[in-house]
Protein backbone atom coordinates (compact mmCIF):
# COMPACT_ATOMS: atom_id res chain seq x y z
CA UNK A 1 0.00 0.00 0.00
CA UNK A 2 2.72 2.47 -0.79
CA UNK A 3 2.23 5.82 -2.46
CA UNK A 4 4.53 4.66 -5.25
CA UNK A 5 1.79 2.35 -6.53
CA UNK A 6 -0.57 5.32 -6.97
CA UNK A 7 1.78 8.05 -8.10
CA UNK A 8 1.45 8.81 -11.78
CA UNK A 9 3.41 10.99 -14.18
CA UNK A 10 3.95 13.95 -14.25
CA UNK A 11 3.51 14.45 -10.50
CA UNK A 12 6.38 14.19 -8.05
CA UNK A 13 4.33 13.70 -4.91
CA UNK A 14 0.96 12.21 -3.96
CA UNK A 15 -0.09 15.51 -2.36
CA UNK A 16 0.42 17.32 -5.69
CA UNK A 17 -1.36 14.58 -7.62
CA UNK A 18 -4.33 14.63 -5.25
CA UNK A 19 -4.55 18.43 -5.42
CA UNK A 20 -4.44 18.41 -9.21
CA UNK A 21 -7.07 15.67 -9.44
CA UNK A 22 -9.55 17.27 -7.07
CA UNK A 23 -8.97 20.75 -8.50
CA UNK A 24 -9.49 19.35 -12.00
CA UNK A 25 -12.79 17.71 -11.09
CA UNK A 26 -14.02 20.88 -9.35
CA UNK A 27 -13.30 22.87 -12.55
CA UNK A 28 -15.24 20.23 -14.50
CA UNK A 29 -18.10 20.34 -11.96
CA UNK A 30 -18.23 24.14 -12.30
CA UNK A 31 -18.69 23.67 -16.07
CA UNK A 32 -21.41 21.10 -15.34
CA UNK A 33 -23.18 23.62 -13.12
CA UNK A 34 -23.28 26.00 -16.09
CA UNK A 35 -24.46 23.25 -18.45
CA UNK A 36 -27.42 22.30 -16.26
CA UNK A 37 -27.80 25.95 -15.25
CA UNK A 38 -28.46 26.92 -18.89
CA UNK A 39 -31.23 24.29 -19.13
CA UNK A 40 -32.75 25.42 -15.81
CA UNK A 41 -32.55 29.03 -17.01
CA UNK A 42 -34.48 28.02 -20.15
CA UNK A 43 -37.07 26.45 -17.84
CA UNK A 44 -37.20 29.68 -15.79
CA UNK A 45 -37.68 31.91 -18.84
CA UNK A 46 -40.59 29.82 -20.17
CA UNK A 47 -42.09 29.43 -16.72
CA UNK A 48 -42.22 33.18 -16.01
CA UNK A 49 -43.87 33.78 -19.38
CA UNK A 50 -46.64 31.19 -18.74
CA UNK A 51 -46.68 30.22 -15.03
CA UNK A 52 -50.20 28.71 -15.15
CA UNK A 53 -49.33 26.23 -17.92
CA UNK A 54 -46.15 25.21 -16.09
CA UNK A 55 -47.90 24.50 -12.79
CA UNK A 56 -50.66 22.59 -14.61
CA UNK A 57 -48.02 20.52 -16.41
CA UNK A 58 -45.95 19.93 -13.27
CA UNK A 59 -49.08 18.61 -11.53
CA UNK A 60 -49.17 15.82 -14.15
CA UNK A 61 -45.80 14.45 -13.00
CA UNK A 62 -45.83 11.64 -10.44
CA UNK A 63 -44.71 13.16 -7.14
CA UNK A 64 -44.13 9.77 -5.51
CA UNK A 65 -41.67 8.54 -8.12
CA UNK A 66 -39.89 11.89 -7.85
CA UNK A 67 -39.78 11.89 -4.05
CA UNK A 68 -38.65 8.26 -3.76
CA UNK A 69 -35.90 8.93 -6.29
CA UNK A 70 -34.76 12.00 -4.35
CA UNK A 71 -34.51 9.88 -1.18
CA UNK A 72 -32.62 7.17 -3.11
CA UNK A 73 -30.07 9.64 -4.49
CA UNK A 74 -29.57 11.38 -1.13
CA UNK A 75 -28.91 7.96 0.44
CA UNK A 76 -26.44 7.10 -2.34
CA UNK A 77 -24.57 10.29 -1.45
CA UNK A 78 -24.34 9.01 2.14
CA UNK A 79 -22.79 5.68 1.06
CA UNK A 80 -20.46 7.49 -1.36
CA UNK A 81 -19.33 9.94 1.35
CA UNK A 82 -18.60 7.06 3.75
CA UNK A 83 -16.59 5.26 1.03
CA UNK A 84 -14.50 8.37 0.31
CA UNK A 85 -13.87 9.15 3.99
CA UNK A 86 -13.01 5.50 4.69
CA UNK A 87 -10.45 5.74 1.89
CA UNK A 88 -8.89 9.03 3.04
CA UNK A 89 -8.74 7.75 6.64
CA UNK A 90 -6.14 5.27 5.26
CA UNK A 91 -6.86 2.69 7.95
CA UNK A 92 -7.41 -0.34 5.74
CA UNK A 93 -11.22 -0.14 5.52
CA UNK A 94 -11.27 -2.40 2.44
CA UNK A 95 -14.54 -4.21 3.16
CA UNK A 96 -16.29 -1.01 4.19
CA UNK A 97 -15.17 0.77 1.02
CA UNK A 98 -16.27 -2.12 -1.24
CA UNK A 99 -19.62 -2.37 0.60
CA UNK A 100 -20.28 1.37 0.37
CA UNK A 101 -19.31 1.61 -3.31
CA UNK A 102 -21.52 -1.42 -4.11
CA UNK A 103 -24.42 0.12 -2.18
CA UNK A 104 -23.93 3.36 -4.12
CA UNK A 105 -24.14 1.42 -7.39
CA UNK A 106 -27.24 -0.47 -6.19
CA UNK A 107 -28.97 2.79 -5.23
CA UNK A 108 -28.02 4.36 -8.56
CA UNK A 109 -29.52 1.39 -10.41
CA UNK A 110 -32.64 1.59 -8.21
CA UNK A 111 -32.98 5.26 -9.22
CA UNK A 112 -32.86 4.33 -12.91
CA UNK A 113 -35.40 1.51 -12.42
CA UNK A 114 -37.85 3.89 -10.71
CA UNK A 115 -37.22 6.44 -13.47
CA UNK A 116 -37.96 3.74 -16.05
CA UNK A 117 -41.36 2.98 -14.47
CA UNK A 118 -42.06 6.71 -14.34
CA UNK A 119 -41.13 7.19 -18.02
CA UNK A 120 -43.45 4.29 -18.93
CA UNK A 121 -46.36 5.96 -17.12
CA UNK A 122 -45.54 9.34 -18.66
CA UNK A 123 -45.67 7.81 -22.14
CA UNK A 124 -48.97 6.05 -21.34
CA UNK A 125 -50.42 9.34 -20.06
CA UNK A 126 -49.48 11.09 -23.36
CA UNK A 127 -46.96 13.40 -21.71
CA UNK A 128 -44.53 13.29 -24.64
CA UNK A 129 -44.72 16.60 -26.57
CA UNK A 130 -46.23 16.31 -30.05
CA UNK A 131 -49.44 14.80 -31.41
CA UNK A 132 -51.99 13.55 -28.82
CA UNK A 133 -50.32 15.49 -26.00
CA UNK A 134 -52.47 15.32 -22.85
CA UNK A 135 -52.71 19.04 -22.04
CA UNK A 136 -54.19 21.89 -24.07
CA UNK A 137 -51.81 24.73 -23.15
CA UNK A 138 -48.91 25.07 -25.61
CA UNK A 139 -46.44 25.93 -22.81
CA UNK A 140 -47.28 22.64 -21.06
CA UNK A 141 -45.53 20.92 -23.98
CA UNK A 142 -42.48 23.12 -23.38
CA UNK A 143 -42.50 22.01 -19.72
CA UNK A 144 -42.52 18.36 -20.77
CA UNK A 145 -39.88 18.91 -23.46
CA UNK A 146 -37.66 20.30 -20.70
CA UNK A 147 -38.72 17.46 -18.37
CA UNK A 148 -37.51 14.81 -20.83
CA UNK A 149 -34.29 16.66 -21.67
CA UNK A 150 -33.37 17.50 -18.05
CA UNK A 151 -34.17 14.07 -16.57
CA UNK A 152 -32.68 12.32 -19.62
CA UNK A 153 -29.37 14.19 -19.47
CA UNK A 154 -29.32 13.65 -15.70
CA UNK A 155 -29.84 9.91 -16.21
CA UNK A 156 -26.92 9.84 -18.68
CA UNK A 157 -24.71 11.53 -16.05
CA UNK A 158 -25.86 9.01 -13.47
CA UNK A 159 -25.11 6.11 -15.82
CA UNK A 160 -21.56 7.42 -16.34
CA UNK A 161 -21.25 7.65 -12.54
CA UNK A 162 -22.43 4.04 -12.23
CA UNK A 163 -19.65 2.96 -14.60
CA UNK A 164 -17.01 4.86 -12.60
CA UNK A 165 -18.18 3.67 -9.17
CA UNK A 166 -18.64 0.02 -10.18
CA UNK A 167 -15.14 0.05 -11.73
CA UNK A 168 -13.70 1.17 -8.37
CA UNK A 169 -15.79 -1.37 -6.41
CA UNK A 170 -14.73 -4.22 -8.70
CA UNK A 171 -11.02 -3.36 -8.71
CA UNK A 172 -10.86 -2.89 -4.94
CA UNK A 173 -12.86 -6.09 -4.35
CA UNK A 174 -10.43 -8.04 -6.54
CA UNK A 175 -7.47 -6.35 -4.76
CA UNK A 176 -6.27 -4.77 -7.99
CA UNK A 177 -6.40 -1.17 -6.78
CA UNK A 178 -4.88 0.60 -3.78
CA UNK A 179 -7.84 1.81 -1.75
CA UNK A 180 -6.19 3.74 1.10
CA UNK A 181 -5.92 7.44 0.27
CA UNK A 182 -6.44 6.86 -3.45
CA UNK A 183 -7.46 10.17 -5.07
CA UNK A 184 -9.47 8.30 -7.74
CA UNK A 185 -12.07 7.44 -5.09
CA UNK A 186 -12.35 11.04 -3.93
CA UNK A 187 -12.61 12.41 -7.48
CA UNK A 188 -15.29 9.86 -8.41
CA UNK A 189 -17.15 10.73 -5.20
CA UNK A 190 -17.17 14.43 -6.06
CA UNK A 191 -18.72 13.64 -9.47
CA UNK A 192 -21.35 11.38 -7.87
CA UNK A 193 -22.35 14.09 -5.38
CA UNK A 194 -22.77 16.64 -8.18
CA UNK A 195 -25.20 14.33 -9.97
CA UNK A 196 -27.14 14.20 -6.68
CA UNK A 197 -27.08 18.02 -6.36
CA UNK A 198 -28.47 18.46 -9.89
CA UNK A 199 -31.39 16.22 -8.89
CA UNK A 200 -31.88 18.19 -5.65
CA UNK A 201 -32.68 21.20 -7.85
CA UNK A 202 -34.67 19.31 -10.49
CA UNK A 203 -37.00 17.88 -7.81
CA UNK A 204 -38.63 21.21 -6.70
CA UNK A 205 -38.74 22.49 -10.30
CA UNK A 206 -40.33 19.41 -11.89
CA UNK A 207 -42.42 17.73 -9.17
CA UNK A 208 -43.42 20.35 -6.60
CA UNK A 209 -45.08 23.22 -8.55
CA UNK A 210 -48.88 23.36 -8.53
CA UNK A 211 -49.47 20.84 -5.72
CA UNK A 212 -51.19 23.34 -3.40
CA UNK A 213 -53.54 24.86 -5.99
Amino acid at each position, binding site marked *: *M*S*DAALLKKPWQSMARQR*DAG*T*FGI*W*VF*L*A*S*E*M*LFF*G*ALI*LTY*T*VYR*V*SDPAAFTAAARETD*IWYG*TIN*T*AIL*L*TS*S*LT*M*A*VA*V*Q*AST*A*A*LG*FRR*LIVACLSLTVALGVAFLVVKGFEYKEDIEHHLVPGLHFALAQPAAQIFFALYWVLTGVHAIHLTIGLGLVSRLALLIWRRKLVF*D*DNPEIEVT*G*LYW*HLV*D*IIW*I*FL*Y*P*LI*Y*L*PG*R*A*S
Partner: protein
Amino acid sequence: MTAKSETPTKTARDLWRRNGLIWAALMVLLALTLSFAYVPLGAANTPIALGIGATKAGLVVWLFMELAKSSALKRLAAATGLVWLCVMFTLTLADVLARLHTH
Protein backbone atom coordinates in the same frame (compact mmCIF):
# COMPACT_ATOMS: atom_id res chain seq x y z
CA MET B 1 3.71 6.40 4.19
CA THR B 2 0.69 8.49 4.99
CA ALA B 3 0.80 11.52 7.25
CA LYS B 4 -2.39 10.59 9.10
CA SER B 5 -0.84 8.54 11.89
CA GLU B 6 -1.08 11.33 14.49
CA THR B 7 -4.84 11.84 14.05
CA PRO B 8 -7.05 9.82 16.45
CA THR B 9 -8.05 6.47 15.00
CA LYS B 10 -11.38 6.60 13.16
CA THR B 11 -13.70 3.64 13.29
CA ALA B 12 -16.35 2.66 10.75
CA ARG B 13 -18.93 3.64 13.37
CA ASP B 14 -17.52 7.19 13.53
CA LEU B 15 -17.86 7.51 9.77
CA TRP B 16 -21.49 6.28 9.80
CA ARG B 17 -22.39 8.51 12.76
CA ARG B 18 -21.03 11.70 11.21
CA ASN B 19 -22.44 11.10 7.74
CA GLY B 20 -25.64 9.49 9.01
CA LEU B 21 -26.50 12.72 10.84
CA ILE B 22 -26.07 14.73 7.64
CA TRP B 23 -28.22 12.16 5.79
CA ALA B 24 -30.93 12.43 8.47
CA ALA B 25 -30.91 16.22 8.07
CA LEU B 26 -31.29 15.81 4.28
CA MET B 27 -34.25 13.44 4.79
CA VAL B 28 -35.95 15.89 7.17
CA LEU B 29 -35.50 18.64 4.59
CA LEU B 30 -36.96 16.39 1.89
CA ALA B 31 -40.03 15.68 4.06
CA LEU B 32 -40.30 19.40 4.79
CA THR B 33 -40.19 20.46 1.14
CA LEU B 34 -42.74 17.78 0.21
CA SER B 35 -45.14 18.96 2.93
CA PHE B 36 -44.68 22.65 2.11
CA ALA B 37 -45.55 21.93 -1.54
CA TYR B 38 -49.14 21.14 -0.44
CA VAL B 39 -49.58 24.27 1.69
CA PRO B 40 -51.23 27.00 -0.42
CA LEU B 41 -48.80 29.91 -0.06
CA GLY B 42 -49.28 31.38 -3.54
CA ALA B 43 -46.11 32.91 -4.95
CA ALA B 44 -44.09 31.83 -1.88
CA ASN B 45 -44.28 28.08 -2.68
CA THR B 46 -41.52 28.09 -5.30
CA PRO B 47 -39.00 30.24 -3.35
CA ILE B 48 -39.53 28.00 -0.27
CA ALA B 49 -38.99 24.82 -2.34
CA LEU B 50 -35.85 26.26 -3.95
CA GLY B 51 -34.58 27.57 -0.61
CA ILE B 52 -34.89 24.09 0.94
CA GLY B 53 -33.22 22.67 -2.20
CA ALA B 54 -30.33 25.13 -1.82
CA THR B 55 -29.97 24.12 1.86
CA LYS B 56 -29.81 20.44 0.88
CA ALA B 57 -27.26 21.20 -1.85
CA GLY B 58 -25.26 23.25 0.67
CA LEU B 59 -25.11 20.31 3.09
CA VAL B 60 -23.94 17.98 0.30
CA VAL B 61 -21.31 20.41 -1.02
CA TRP B 62 -20.01 21.53 2.36
CA LEU B 63 -20.02 18.23 4.28
CA PHE B 64 -20.30 15.26 1.87
CA MET B 65 -17.99 16.84 -0.74
CA GLU B 66 -15.94 18.20 2.18
CA LEU B 67 -15.54 21.69 0.76
CA ALA B 68 -15.43 22.75 4.42
CA LYS B 69 -12.03 21.03 4.68
CA SER B 70 -10.81 21.80 1.16
CA SER B 71 -8.11 24.22 0.11
CA ALA B 72 -8.88 27.74 -1.09
CA LEU B 73 -8.10 26.65 -4.66
CA LYS B 74 -10.96 24.12 -4.68
CA ARG B 75 -13.38 26.50 -2.97
CA LEU B 76 -12.50 29.09 -5.60
CA ALA B 77 -13.16 26.60 -8.43
CA ALA B 78 -16.57 25.75 -6.94
CA ALA B 79 -17.40 29.43 -6.33
CA THR B 80 -16.46 30.27 -9.93
CA GLY B 81 -19.21 27.98 -11.19
CA LEU B 82 -21.70 29.70 -8.91
CA VAL B 83 -20.55 33.22 -9.90
CA TRP B 84 -20.89 32.58 -13.64
CA LEU B 85 -24.25 30.91 -13.02
CA CYS B 86 -25.38 34.11 -11.26
CA VAL B 87 -24.11 36.25 -14.17
CA MET B 88 -26.01 34.09 -16.68
CA PHE B 89 -29.26 34.20 -14.69
CA THR B 90 -29.02 37.91 -13.85
CA LEU B 91 -28.32 39.13 -17.38
CA THR B 92 -30.91 36.87 -19.03
CA LEU B 93 -33.67 37.47 -16.49
CA ALA B 94 -33.02 41.23 -16.40
CA ASP B 95 -33.97 41.25 -20.08
CA VAL B 96 -36.81 38.72 -19.94
CA LEU B 97 -38.51 40.14 -16.85
CA ALA B 98 -38.23 43.73 -18.14
CA ARG B 99 -40.00 42.76 -21.38
CA LEU B 100 -42.63 40.77 -19.50
CA HIS B 101 -43.77 43.79 -17.48
CA THR B 102 -43.91 46.30 -20.33
CA HIS B 103 -46.88 44.81 -22.19
